[in-house]
């Protein structure tokens, strides 16, 4: 059941078998599996609960109320990266684009080799299958994908580049383009409307607007987790405290290390918050002669895998008009022209499987402070991605391409794009990221890993961790299926 804010705003004290911090894909899967096994589970979620029918197209309010740090999360370092993550019941899946891809088996092999990860790709295969089955993963439907995706498909085919419609957890999608503000159609399958059965599992108690802060422990045993209930206007309303036999941190790659660092836990090897990977993404806008209606398309419907060996994946990323206008440097009279640009635009991005890494630190108000420095090799790759997308747009029939840099430079040929990118400095590249991972790596290697192969936080006896933070290295694909597979495995361990 989902507790209402009116019931909990004055605070609460509860006892349960398992207390989980975070209701995203990690916490949601573990919570529902354990509750179904008969354990009393409490799920604490810092964000609100939003019923499907209450999602809107109001980007300002959605970002402010449902995104972590109100969508205002910038890394410290050059170029700065705008990071986004969800903060609501169901986690980032509620506002993600629906993309569901398995990682390359070599990635998991790499974990075994470099982090002494205790499982092979084959061990995880049945969990990938279960996740894909439950989330109804299937390729985006071309009939609703929208003009933009089809134009790019043609462009890729003309160039002879490998590409395909993206497998998504959105069975019945109508291509209304609102994935990132919440699917009010109900087509998108999320952890909440599948595994968590819309919050109707017996023994599973979901507490929204409850931000965990203090982890009270004694000799490696966690006794209590306490924190604040936050009201709808972001103010502290009441205190809460949960006692349990076992605790699970699934607050995501940014908040899980913050909670550990704030409480001085599990950091004997100094690796908590280190090893942050984000899959930095860059993007261009192509201007086409015809109206493209990005707003009536699948946001992320088609991808080009031609450069996968180089760690570059090219995917759609159609923004609603408010995000487009926000992210383009047009002022005063120019804004009217920008609206015309939007109507004829297609936006595609390049996601990098990076070599760089960053770190997360806890600020005094228990929010993440994120540092990220790029290696030159990744800057080169980002430029390569921008060039490839420009070429793709031109091949698809774009009249001109606007490069994703601070000056939003317009180019009309590949050569021109090459010249502009050659003289673009790294701080001028506009970078965003949507896949934070790796800040509490899992594996048997005690020097590198915060979590052991049983998902137990090192140095603790009843504190488990399972979310994106345990992924030890960049996947090169959206991490949803990988976190799901790891969460099934963690749930099995916790059941024993």
């Amino acid at each position, binding site marked *: 059941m989902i507790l209402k804010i009116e019931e909990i705003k004055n605070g609460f004290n509860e006892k349960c078998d398992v207390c989980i911090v975070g209701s995203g894909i990690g916490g949601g899967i573990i919570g529902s599996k354990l509750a179904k096994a008969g354990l009393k589970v409490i799920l604490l979620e810092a964000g609100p609960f939003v019923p499907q029918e209450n999602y809107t197209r109001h980007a300002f309010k959605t970002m402010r109320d449902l995104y972590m*740090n109100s969508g205002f999360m910038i890394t410290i370092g050059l170029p700065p990266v705008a990071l986004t993550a969800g903060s609501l019941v169901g986690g980032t899946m509620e506002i993600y684009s629906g993309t569901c891809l398995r990682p390359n088996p070599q990635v998991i092999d790499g974990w075994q080799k470099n982090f002494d990860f205790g499982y092979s790709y084959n061990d995880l295969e049945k969990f990938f299958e279960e996740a894909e089955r439950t989330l109804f993963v299937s390729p985006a439907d071309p009939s609703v994908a929208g003009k933009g995706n089809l134009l790019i498909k043609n462009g890729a085919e003309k160039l002879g580049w490998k590409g395909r419609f993206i497998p998504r957890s959105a069975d019945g999608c109508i291509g*209304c383009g609102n994935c990132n503000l919440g699917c009010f159609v109900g087509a998108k399958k999320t952890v909440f409307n599948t595994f968590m059965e819309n919050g109707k599992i017996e023994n599973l108690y979901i507490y929204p607007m409850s931000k965990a802060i203090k982890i009270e422990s004694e000799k490696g045993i966690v006794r209590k987790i306490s924190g604040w209930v936050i009201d709808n206007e972001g103010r502290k309303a009441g205190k809460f405290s949960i006692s349990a036999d076992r605790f699970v941190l699934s607050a995501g790659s940014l908040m899980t290390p913050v909670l550990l660092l704030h409480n001085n836990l599990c950091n004997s090897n100094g690796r908590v918050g280190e090893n942050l990977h984000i899959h930095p993404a860059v993007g261009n806008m192509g201007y086409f002669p015809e109206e493209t209606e990005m707003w009536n398309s699948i946001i992320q419907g088609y991808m080009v895998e031609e450069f996968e060996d180089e760690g570059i994946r090219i995917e759609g990323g159609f923004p609603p008009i408010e995000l487009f206008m*926000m992210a383009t440097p047009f002022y*005063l009279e120019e804004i009217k022209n920008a609206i015309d640009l939007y109507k004829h635009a297609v936006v595609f991005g390049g996601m990098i499987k990076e070599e760089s890494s960053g770190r997360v630190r806890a600020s*005094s108000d228990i929010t993440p402070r994120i540092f990220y420095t790029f290696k030159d090799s990744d800057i080169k790759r980002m430029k390569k991605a921008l060039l490839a997308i420009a070429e793709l747009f031109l091949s698809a029939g774009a009249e001109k391409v606007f490069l994703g840099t601070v000056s939003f430079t317009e180019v009309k040929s590949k050569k021109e794009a090459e010249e502009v990118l050659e003289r673009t400095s790294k701080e001028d590249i506009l970078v965003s990221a949507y896949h934070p991972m790796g800040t509490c790596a899992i594996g048997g290697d005690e020097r590198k890993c915060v979590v052991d192969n049983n998902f137990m936080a090192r140095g603790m006896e009843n504190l488990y961790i399972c979310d994106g933070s345990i992924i030890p290295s960049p996947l090169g694909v959206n991490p949803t299926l990988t976190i799901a597979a790891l969460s099934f495995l963690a749930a099995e361990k916790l059941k024993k």
Partner: protein
Amino acid sequence: MKRREFIISGLTISISITGFYGCSKREEGIQGEPLTSLGETLFQKEFVSSREFNKEEFKKEMKIYFNKLPKDAKLGLKWMMRFLEFSPVIFLYSFKRFSSLPLKKREEFIRKMAKSRFKMVRLLLFSLKTLPTLYYFSDENLKKELGINYKA
């Protein structure tokens, strides 16, 4: 460095420091003013559409936004707003705050900032316009007026 550039850099640094240290909590209400004025200038009636920027509603929504922002982000945003508020002295040689300038002067100020040779200044304006822009274009009726008709 030319003398003019030296003076501009000095003033920029001074205003930045004033902004950084001058961000007391009680001023949060006032702090929203520069963003509201920026929104009002960018989205004047008939400039983009027949709908003007709803200042009162924006201020109300921004108050909640401020409450929800983490400390670091709040400080960063306040710093940027302070810069905007006090920088007419650099671009217009006027000692008036940005939010007390007449509309035409604010337009002139934005044009100068957007074309500034200093990348940091352009970036600052770019960052500051995000919130009023996001708010203005989130209006369902505005989208309809602009011809953004959704299938659902």
